[in-house]
């Protein structure tokens, strides 16, 4: 099997250029026939393109490189624990209703229509289906929810639209309500290690690009430090330009210490150093940022697995792997959750940007298919705009 796979790979390496040449050469010949108008001036190709490509290729290599984990901290820089700014202020936790008030009403129309019709008919089901799909719950989960309700209507359990909506609400809340929604308390690794003060919890923040990992981490840091927990931030996103700076600002806001590596460096070693640093300082938890990565990039998922392995090496112990998902995400969120869970054993979801018009219904599908609980919800850009997930309020907002 391995040999066969290898043959296929070599076949590809050899074959693709051939195909490309065949097609490309045909074009070149055609353009030669037509005159130079459409052809690229060779000079430009020679001078301009390669330079850019090489530049970027350098970055590419740096990112894809699978360097061994340096055991000794090399090039990582620990920013001494900044004096916490006078007092870390955590604004009052915002409420769903308050935040979502402006965004409500998108689905209300459908549900109002369902209520006002007075009886359950074909249009009722169409309206419910549309409302759920518009909330990004997805075709599969929507069908399952509605099929179940249809059976109950047929059995006479549900008689009128109000009861139907209540039942749907109840089903959604039940689907999202699991006892595993609480975050593992920081310091649990130490407790498990018989109070050995060197043991330190590691929380990994993972997800695709642009979902708000760094911001979420900053908010979590603010919240933890305000509660008296000592956190060390690991700037494990060494790929995105200035991600480290962004996290450093959050570190100074929250008063947590930050460990940074060189841009383009090995993220595993940054997390490793942060764990060492946290253990030496007797900190409770390391909050590790990671670069955004699309779940279909196998090499990047491998890199993430390695970060997890390294983080789990004593004195570190991974107690949370939080998958950050943007509420605007559509059905692809399910694939994201599946791949990340498979790769790094995600413990919970953080649903961000729920203060917009998007409903984040994909978490219903994620919970249903993968049993992955939503733990936190992001409701804005402020340090305090991160709250515990509450299924009841979430479903109400959905409606």
């Amino acid at each position: 099997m391995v040999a066969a796979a290898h043959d296929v790979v070599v076949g590809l390496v050899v074959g693709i250029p051939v195909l490309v040449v065949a097609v490309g050469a045909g074009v070149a010949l055609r353009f030669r026939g037509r005159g130079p108008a459409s052809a690229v001036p060779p000079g430009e190709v020679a001078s301009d393109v390669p330079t850019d490509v090489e530049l970027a290729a350098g970055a590419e290599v740096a990112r894809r490189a699978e360097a061994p984990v340096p055991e000794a901290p090399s090039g990582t820089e620990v920013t001494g624990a900044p004096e916490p700014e006078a007092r870390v202020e955590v604004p009052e936790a915002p409420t769903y209703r308050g935040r979502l008030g402006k965004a409500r009403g998108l689905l209300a129309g459908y549900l109002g229509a369902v209520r006002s019709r007075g009886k359950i008919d074909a249009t009722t089901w169409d309206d419910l289906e549309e409302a759920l799909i518009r909330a990004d719950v997805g075709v599969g989960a929507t069908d399952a929810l509605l099929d179940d309700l249809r059976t109950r209507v047929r059995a006479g359990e549900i008689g009128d639209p109000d009861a139907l909506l209540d039942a749907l609400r109840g089903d959604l809340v039940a689907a999202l309500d699991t006892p595993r929604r609480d975050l593992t308390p920081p310091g649990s690794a130490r407790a498990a290690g018989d109070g050995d003060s060197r043991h330190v919890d590691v929380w990994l923040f993972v997800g695709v690009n642009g979902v708000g990992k760094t911001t979420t981490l900053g908010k979590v840091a603010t919240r933890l430090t305000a509660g008296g927990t000592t956190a060390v931030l690991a700037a494990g996103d060494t790929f995105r330009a200035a991600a480290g700076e962004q996290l450093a600002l959050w570190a100074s806001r929250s008063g947590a210490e930050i460990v940074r590596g060189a841009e383009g460096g090995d993220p595993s070693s940054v997390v490793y150093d942060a764990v060492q640093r946290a253990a030496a300082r007797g900190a409770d938890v390391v909050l590790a940022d990671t670069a955004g990565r699309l779940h279909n990039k196998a090499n990047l998922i491998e890199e993430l697995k390695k970060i997890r392995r390294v983080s789990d090496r004593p004195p570190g112990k991974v107690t949370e792997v939080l998958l950050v998902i943007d509420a605007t995400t559509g059905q692809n969120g399910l694939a994201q959750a599946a791949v990340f869970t498979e790769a790094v054993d995600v413990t919970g979801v953080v649903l961000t940007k729920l203060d917009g018009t998007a409903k984040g219904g994909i978490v219903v599908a994620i919970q249903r298919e993968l049993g992955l609980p939503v733990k936190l919800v992001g409701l804005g850009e402020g340090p305090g705009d991160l709250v515990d997930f509450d299924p009841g309020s979430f479903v109400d907002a959905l409606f």
Partner: protein
Amino acid sequence: MFERLTDRFEGILGRLRNRGRLTEADIEDVLREIRTALLEADVEIGVVRTFVGAVRERCVGLELSRALSPGQQVVKIVNEELTGLLGGETLRITYASRPPTVVLLAGLQGSGKTTAAAKLARWFKQQGRNPMLVGADLQRPAAVEQLRVLAGQIGVTVFSEATDPVAVAQAGLAEARRLGRDVCIVDTAGRLAIDAELMEEVRRIAEVVSPDYTFLVIDAMTGQDAVATATAFHQTLALDGVILTKLDGDARGGAALSVKEVVGRPIAFASTGERLEDFDLFHPDRMADRILGMGDVLSLIEQAERTFDEGTAAKAAAAMLEGRFTLEDFLEQLQQVKRMGPLSGVLSMLPGLSKDMKQASSMVDDRQVGQVEAIIRSMTPAERLDPATIDGSRRLRIANGSGTTTADVNALLKQFREMQKLMKGFSKGGLAGAMGGLGGMFGRGGPKLSPTALAELQSTSDLAGAPGGPLAGLTGMGGLPGMGGAPGSGRGSARATKGGSSKGGRKGKGGGRVTPKSR
């Protein structure tokens, strides 16, 4: 990108293709599947309804054509409607008569505005322009820093100052004028469409810079909400188009398609990777083909044009056709293809590759390409010209020199021999023979090019090969025997379901049609 949708359609339509006659129930089945597929691809539900309605209308009372089976006609209709849905033509940038041409980027948080701004600057630079970037995202910590780092990689100036976004935009534009830049790209902070205050701010930015182009940056993974967001931004800013980011993920893209439908603005650019050069104009007609499993041959060709040294390519093609393609030529070609990006990316643009094949392609990474390169570079010039001279001890020397094993060297040599046979296929049997040979190279897990894909390839090469040109032999064949490396299995009915399907463009439709051949 769009693979999921493609898979779905291939599943549904594959069944249709094999049917001679469609019943009304068939049509409803297909429509339901199409609806689900589009919804799962995050196309907005209203747009899906319109789309399915349009397809239904055209399917019912379908004029039966002699040339196409009813199933093929449905495929054609779906393709046409999809092309329409994706938008008509590729955007052409018209530059302001009084430079600079101002481009404003706006969007939700995390949609990729800053990266898109840098990529856009690179794109303009490649068009021979002299762009400047203005960092007006003062909201997100270190956003301007990120822009500076990216701009540094492409040698573009960034203007920003710690005042307020409107002032920065205004001063940035003045700076661009002063420096004589002809394109000025303004990056703004991410904002929610319902945040009245920030929407007012971006409106004022637009007011002071009066952009020639205002683009909404949308994440390809966005769900049903994309339309609401786009509508709101359009009301505030009067958008000119959309930049679709993160298209290199799986599934997705659906929501962005609906934006065109609802807002009436095209997808102008698409970003397909993390590297700054993974960015280009969006080609709607090609994307529709892609959804239908045709691959993106035209994009591939254009990319090839851009990165290929014409002379080398022509020389290699000639060498290929004359059957004297050496390892030296191959090495040269490999360099060129590498310049087009990661091999797996190039591969994903080839049409009709099966799932297995795509899976296999994800195993190809640039390290393996490097290995192949290293092996060839460890050969003497004489060995490269005539690999037959490589005996056991030379093999060992090459393996040692390239840090590989003799098994690796053998594998490469074997593949190369296969390829040389394939070259002979090119010169003798045209594309079909060559493709058959290629299939053989890949073995059982190899590419199963669908008949339609081949028809497409043929029409492409038809377009490529001028009449009487060296590649003319590739065209005009009805059956394509020996596909999938199984000589004689003859999946030979190449049907031109594609013929005349996309609107105008460079497809050379006249010659693209292949008469169905039943077996």
